[in-house]
């Protein structure tokens, strides 16, 4: 179950980026993303779990580069989301490998996929909303201030939750 979800996530991430890049005419980059998907899959099946962090970095960097070049934001978002899910599921598969054959891993897998699905849907929904909803009259200084406030708030929240 996890493996299927993992493969689908990688395909979602890399194919989305490939489509986004190829729509903008950057076919060479699309091929690189497909190659990355192949390498990631091979690395996972060879149990090189460390590679998933590198793959996530590359995919997010690719998505960010696409956003900067003003490629289709939805494909870039889907790419980043697929990368995030692939990274998460790769680590989950690693943790599952510690389980003994008699452990009830199916229910753990089901719960994990449910939780990750919720996270993905929420994240993607928020991201799409943020792209769709545009406040035209917001000055740049205000936007910077809001971003800084968000970063600060996020940091405080994380610290607070960690203490809790």
């Amino acid at each position: 179950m996890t493996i299927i979800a993992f493969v689908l996530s990688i395909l979602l991430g890399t194919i989305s980026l490939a489509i986004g890049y190829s729509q903008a005419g950057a076919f060479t980059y699309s091929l690189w993303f497909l190659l990355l998907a192949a390498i990631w899959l091979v690395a996972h099946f060879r149990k090189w779990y460390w590679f998933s962090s590198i793959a996530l970095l590359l995919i997010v960097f690719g998505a960010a580069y696409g956003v900067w070049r003003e490629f289709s934001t939805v494909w870039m978002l889907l790419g980043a989301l697929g990368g995030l899910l692939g990274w998460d599921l790769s680590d989950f598969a690693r943790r599952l490998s510690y389980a003994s054959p008699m452990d009830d891993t199916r229910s753990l897998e089901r719960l994990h996929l449910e939780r990750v699905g919720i996270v993905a849907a929420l994240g993607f929904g928020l991201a799409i909303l943020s792209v769709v909803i545009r406040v035209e009259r917001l000055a740049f200084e205000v936007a910077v201030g809001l971003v800084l406030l968000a970063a600060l708030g996020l940091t405080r929240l994380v610290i607070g939750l960690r203490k809790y």
Partner: protein
Amino acid sequence: MSRSLLLSLLTYALLLAGMLTVQGEFIALALPLVTYLLIGYLQAPETIKLAATRHLSAERVSPNANVDVTVTVTNHGASLEEVLLDDPMPEGLVLNSGFSRHLLALKKGESYAFTYTASGPRGGYVFESLDVRVSDHIAVSTSIARVEAKGRLFILPPVTRIRPVAIRPRRTRVYAGSIPARAGGTGTEFFGVREYQPGDAPSSINWRASARYLDKLYANEFQQERVADVAIVLDGRLRTNEFAGRHSLFEYSVQAAASLADALLTQGNRVGLLVYATYLAWTLPGYGKIQRERILHALANAKTGESQVFSDLEHIPTRLFPAESQIILVSPLLEDDFPTLLHLRAQGYEVMVISPNPVKFELSYLPTNELVQLASRVIRMERTLLLQKMGRAGIHVLDWDVAEPFDHFVRRRLGRTPFWLRAVGR
């Protein structure tokens, strides 16, 4: 790098990129990561309140016998979504069936028990704690804890039941036993003839001796049999026990010491054990079954070791042994050991050496060629000379070829000589 740190760095990088390029899409890219992080932290496990108990199907077993280890973990805190329980086995034990690592979810108040089967070589094994790794489903934050679940397993050396061991220390204890006490009194074996005294049983009168005298009667006197103090010294020096290719005589020595201790304690003697290796491990002398357990536990933990201080036997602490008692040294022996043994003998101890034969042991696995044969002849001669020298010094040396079972060897060499053989001076 931790998962949360990686995601945080990516998030901040995207926020920064959004600020620098004045593009809101970067912030949109960061939102799935932020959502992931926040949900992860919100679901982070609280303080871990796990308790564990351990049950072993047997706490003392023979080498390579299977032991079922059952561990029960109870969650006294909040529900835990993903718990990895890992029970590290003490070094030396081998997992035969079952699993010592489990991944599960533990609800509040729920218990989980797992069993696995382990076995191992001789030794004392201590189970300390379980390694527990608790995380939420998306494992943004992970807590690692150790939950105490103590247990002890003794894999004791095999004890071969051997016949009573004939020893004759100079001094015995006051309690009745089976060791000839070199003193006349009540007993079973003839000791001498003395003048009849009132109170002596009429049956003890030696009529043949009395017939020679007109006015006196003579009575037979029997040798008193008492218990004795015996110190078993187990030589655990690396240089005497270990040979090339990790072949070791030590297991044989341990087996011999265990069997001797068992036999001597069964005879009612007071037995102590000294393991002479990296350090001195002294088991105080005692009697009976409890002492047998103490000695077997000490032997279970005995290991060979190397130490500059104890590289020779000269540091055997004679103060530990009662004066003129019996010392039984179990050692493959080295040339340098002779002066120390001679010194012990001079101090009045009755010294017996049970020496697993290292020459025959090494020959049993070395290839048969001329060089090996020649070397073995030289070493065998040296050893024979050493053993003869010891014999002349009054040290009772028993050269044990470990290919022969110890009980057979003891029956042949150490059993008590029947009285009719002793009578003819054998």
